[in-house]
């Protein structure tokens, strides 16, 4: 699936999007998998309360299932308007 990062999450991880092959069942499992990879991921995901997640471009919770999902995005709380 495609994993996208925005704002300071993108800056901390160092890339805007990547292709991830995973068998993670939920968003939280995916976060654990990425955090185990490298320090920059662990740093970006250190405080989940400061993060928001979208699954296939809809806001979702960290326990959302990933079966059939094409795109997951991580970002800080939004500041539009």
């Amino acid at each position, binding site marked *: 699936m495609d994993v*996208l990062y*925005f*704002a*300071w999450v*993108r800056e901390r991880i160092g890339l805007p999007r990547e292709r991830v092959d995973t068998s993670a069942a939920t968003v939280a499992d995916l976060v654990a998998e990425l955090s185990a990879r490298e320090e920059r991921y662990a740093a970006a995901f250190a405080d989940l309360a400061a993060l928001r997640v*979208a699954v296939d*471009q*809809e*806001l979702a919770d960290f326990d959302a299932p990933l079966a059939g999902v094409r795109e997951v*995005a991580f*970002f*800080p*709380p*939004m*500041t*539009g*308007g």
Partner: protein
Amino acid sequence: MRIVVQADPFDFGAEAAAFAEGRDDLGAVVTFTGVVRGDAALERMEIEHYPGMTEKALEQIAAEAVRRWDLGDVLVIHRYGPMRPGERIMMVATAAAHREAAFDSAAFLMDYLKSRAPFWKKEHAADGDSWVAARAADEAALTRW
């Protein structure tokens, strides 16, 4: 209903004048415009967004406003990319038979747009760059609807 997400500046006067123009079933039109606020140190603001999801989120928010109030028309324009202090970031406009619906729906659109549409602001200042933090008051504002 019209939703526009673009990098270019928009012509607020022309958009405001054209919105619901000549519609004699709509007695009340409200517009809101957001402007880049500056202070001595701010050189520019950069707005990042999530192409694809942004349009979808704005359409859902506007559709929800139309579901809650009897609106004759809705417009949302939001820019992304670099902007200078004093430039217009975005606008919403609502039109209804009476003023209560036009005011309430415009305030509703702004509250949801602030906290539920995927935009992020970064301030570039003489003394460094920083991401604008979400205001607790903005999240709290959603509970009134």
